[in-house]
């Protein structure tokens, strides 16, 4: 199979928009039991994405390319922050950002493992929340992202059914806070 970096370039070129389900596992260094969550995502470059957790509890993140909205129904709270600060730091933003990957990371070929071709992405700035990010691809499609932070916590996100060129409805990237919810901006 082609090297990871070649497949990543092909994926980035092809995936102007994409959608599918994700499964996320967060493993902490302290041996705390891993936290598994799952849901749906849609993204539309540049900068627009919708990241919807369904399990274990509902959480919705929507970026319209300018602002990132985060909605937690149980807390009945919406937080809004400029996408700029969050862009390089969320996995979703790395996918949907316009060049966020190259701007925030040095990309190095990461060889083959688990049947995938890998790219190792090293943060360019020291203050990045990630220590290392690894992107696994097969047939030019994103399959898995692994991110380790400075506390030794590893987040693995699998994309079992990612489809590209989905031409998403623009309303998916608009968020109107439900009435009665607290809206707090950073």
């Amino acid at each position, binding site marked *: 199979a082609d090297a990871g970096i070649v497949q990543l370039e092909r994926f980035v070129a092809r995936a102007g928009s994409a959608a599918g389900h994700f499964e996320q596992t967060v493993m902490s260094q302290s041996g705390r039991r891993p936290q598994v969550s799952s849901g749906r995502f849609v993204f539309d470059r540049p900068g627009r994405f919708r990241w919807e957790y369904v399990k274990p509890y509902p959480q919705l993140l929507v970026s319209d390319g300018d602002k990132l909205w985060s909605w937690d129904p149980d*807390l009945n709270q919406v937080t809004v922050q400029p996408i700029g600060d969050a862009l390089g730091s969320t996995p979703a933003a790395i996918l949907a950002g316009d060049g966020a990957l190259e701007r925030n990371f040095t990309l190095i070929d990461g060889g083959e493992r688990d049947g995938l071709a890998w790219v190792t992405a090293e943060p360019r700035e020291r203050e990045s*929340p990630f220590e290392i990010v690894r992107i696994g691809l097969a047939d030019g499609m994103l399959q898995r992202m692994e991110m380790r932070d400075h506390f030794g916590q590893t987040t693995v996100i699998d994309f079992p059914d990612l489809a590209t060129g989905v031409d998403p409805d623009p309303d998916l990237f608009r968020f109107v806070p439900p009435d009665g919810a607290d809206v707090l901006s950073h």
Partner: protein
Amino acid sequence: CALQPAGEDGAPLVERAAIEHFEFEGRIAASDGQRAANGTLQWTRRAGYDEWTLLSPLGQIVARVVGTPQGATLRTADGRTIEAVDVDELLPQMLGVDAPADHLDEWLQARPAPGARVIETDALGRPTRISDSGWLIDYPTYADDSAEAMPRRIDATWGEVRLRVVTDGWTALP
């Protein structure tokens, strides 16, 4: 021990057993009118060891405060480390509000801390409002309808300052 007087319409307060050592996890939203922080709070308490971890909505660790009898440290995602005598100075920096660190376990378990007063109880004798050092702590919902249930949602306010917690899990540790 003497039962405290019942709130207006609630049953007499039922004494609640404390969980001394635990792993707690819940979502937290803190605001002081200007700044706001939200995410998931993980708290591990063992004998002589407290570790609070704040994670972003996407599961990235934002900050971690560790407290032991020897002192306390706050580490942030971008690698900064701050030392202090105890956690009382550091926890507010992580949570974004000045919640009293040493009463937090009582708040989360709906037990009146020393000096706090239960103002209202529900039909099962569980606190629905506690007043503690200027804070008002409301317990709108509990995890289930047993007397010893843990609160599901905790709304603490102190003037403009507000701390809201939704409990996701308690694990008692030996």
